[in-house]
């Protein structure tokens, strides 16, 4: 069997496992995997920037949290918003935010780009943290989740844990396919060309700024989609959704999993969240409560991956990765 077939079989098996999960496991794991899939969408959207366009954004939480806040602001306080209006509004708002910020930050590059994206996301963080908009530092609850009514017909209920899981799974697959299609198109080729050698692409006649901006907006919109779903899952929106910690950890998921692969960042999201859970449940050994100090092991794990796996975790799974690691 060649590599392509192996990859497809592995992908189908993973999807099959995700599809049967709610029927065989407890509610806790369904909720956990809903969270993992949402972070997977978030990580894949950042991979479009870091892995494919070479734009290392350290402020990606701005769009994630921004969309969450938009959902709160368009929802009536004690009644349900409509999914079909609030979702497009939230995603469009995230895209618009990315357009505005992108037009400014794309003037810089390299480490300066990393820091300016951080600066803008921090501005948004302090705007919601220090003022009374949407509950200030405490955040705000979404008492009633949006409803999915189409002329009285209700295809699914977002208050139901299993329904929400399948909605998130469907969105995850859709985002994955969408990104694959975009990357396989001419647009995707140009983007990769820009990452490898921007001045050459420019001399070939491509308006590289516009391509990068388009990429930034798509990534922002998809991050917004993830943030919207996250706000629905937890029923609360707070400034932590905009904080640099979140931008940092999603970046770690992308690098840890293996950037520029889409599957890698999703895998990175899963590994980091499962590892967190696993480490937290470790027992006390020789007077040291490992479960409470789980970050010690998590940090060591990240250090080891950075030292030993130049292609990230995905490099372990693919032959190409293994070869590149030696070369």
């Amino acid at each position, binding site marked *: 069997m060649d590599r392509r077939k192996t990859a497809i079989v592995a992908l189908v098996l993973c999807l099959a496992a995700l599809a049967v999960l709610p029927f065989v496991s407890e509610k806790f794991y369904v909720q956990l995997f809903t969270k993992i899939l949402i972070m997977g969408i978030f990580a894949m959207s950042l991979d479009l920037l*870091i892995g494919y366009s070479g734009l*290392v954004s350290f402020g990606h939480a701005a769009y994630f949290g921004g969309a969450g806040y938009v959902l709160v602001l368009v929802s009536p306080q004690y009644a349900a918003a409509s999914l079909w209006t609030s979702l497009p509004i939230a995603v469009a708002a995230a895209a618009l935010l990315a357009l505005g910020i992108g037009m*400014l930050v794309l*003037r*810089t*590059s*390299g*480490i*300066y780009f990393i*820091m*300016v994206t*951080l*600066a*803008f996301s*921090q*501005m948004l*963080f*302090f*705007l919601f*943290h*220090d*003022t009374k908009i949407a509950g200030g530092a405490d955040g705000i609850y979404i008492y009633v989740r949006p409803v999915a009514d189409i002329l009285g017909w209700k295809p699914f209920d977002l208050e139901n844990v299993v329904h929400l899981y399948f909605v998130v799974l469907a969105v995850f697959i859709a985002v994955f396919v969408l990104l694959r299609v975009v990357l396989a198109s001419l647009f995707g080729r140009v983007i990769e060309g820009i990452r490898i050698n921007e001045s050459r692409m420019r001399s070939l006649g491509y308006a590289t700024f516009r391509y990068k901006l388009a990429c930034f907006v798509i990534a922002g919109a998809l991050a917004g989609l993830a943030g919207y779903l996250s706000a629905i899952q937890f029923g609360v929106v707070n400034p932590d959704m905009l904080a*640099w910690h979140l931008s*940092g950890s999603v*970046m*770690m998921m992308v*690098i*840890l999993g293996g*950037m520029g692969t889409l599957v890698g960042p999703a895998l990175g999201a899963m590994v980091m969240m499962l590892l967190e859970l696993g480490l937290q449940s470790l027992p006390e050994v020789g007077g*040291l409560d490992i479960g409470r*100090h*789980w*970050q*010690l092991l*998590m*940090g*060591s*794990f*990240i*250090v080891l*991956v*950075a*030292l030993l796996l*130049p292609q990230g975790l995905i490099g372990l799974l693919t032959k190409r990765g293994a070869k590149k690691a030696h070369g």
Partner: protein
Amino acid sequence: MDFGTFLIQLLNGVQYGLLLFLVASGLTLVFGIMGVINLAHGSFYMIGAYLAWSLSERFGDLWTAIAVGVVLTVLLGMALEWLLIRKLYARDHLYQVLLTYGLILVFEELRSVLWGDDVHGVAVPSALGASIPLTETLSYPVVRLWISVVCIALAVAMYFLIQRTRIGMMIRAGASNREMVQSLGINIQLVYRVVFALGIALAAFAGMIASPVSSVFPGMGNQVLIICFVVVVIGGIGSVKGAMVAAILIGLVDTFGKVLHVEIAGIKLLPELAGMTVYVLMAVVLLWRPEGIFGRRL
């Protein structure tokens, strides 16, 4: 705002800025000379503060604590460079980010294991306990002036070390061409180890001298890290002079952002949005000069 209050805020702003400079100069040196992005730099500020607290409890005074603490952090820095950082010189910046992010988690958790999660205070040494009266009602604590003076002295010493000594020459040469310096028979590996150790020792030292005026608490490292990145980027990466100018600027903007009252069209901007001022400043500077105030055009 009357003159006395203004003067105090000005002194506070400068003192905060000088402290930021101490932390940020280590960060900018390590990046400018070794090409390493060290996210864990802020952790050493925290480690310094905790060392000052725990060692001064043990030895009974802050001076011994600082002396012992500096030696410990230099050794820690050399060990870290030898064990981990030197493996990253040839690698993409992103892996440096990944590894040093892992180190943040490790240091933060080690701190929790060794020293717990409580907030502590360090007593002001009796020699610095006095206050200088400014007006009939306002006075300024000597310890804050002492911090400023120590920072300025270190900045001057750093300038002489880098610009006027043989070691400084090796460091500057190593920053522009590593291979060339090595083939001239200079042990660049050792130069890097020393630079890294001194860089983090600066951060730790800043944490130590700041400990009497600010409390010692978990998470203090990350707070200072983000602000120091802002300083480094505004000043221009790798430029110590830029770090100085940017640090003072940030110190003043941050301090006055919290005390000035600015209102436009009935919307209160300051001090309500004081948290944003530093980042607005950074965005404006970078849009005006994308390589920072004293940065080399990339």
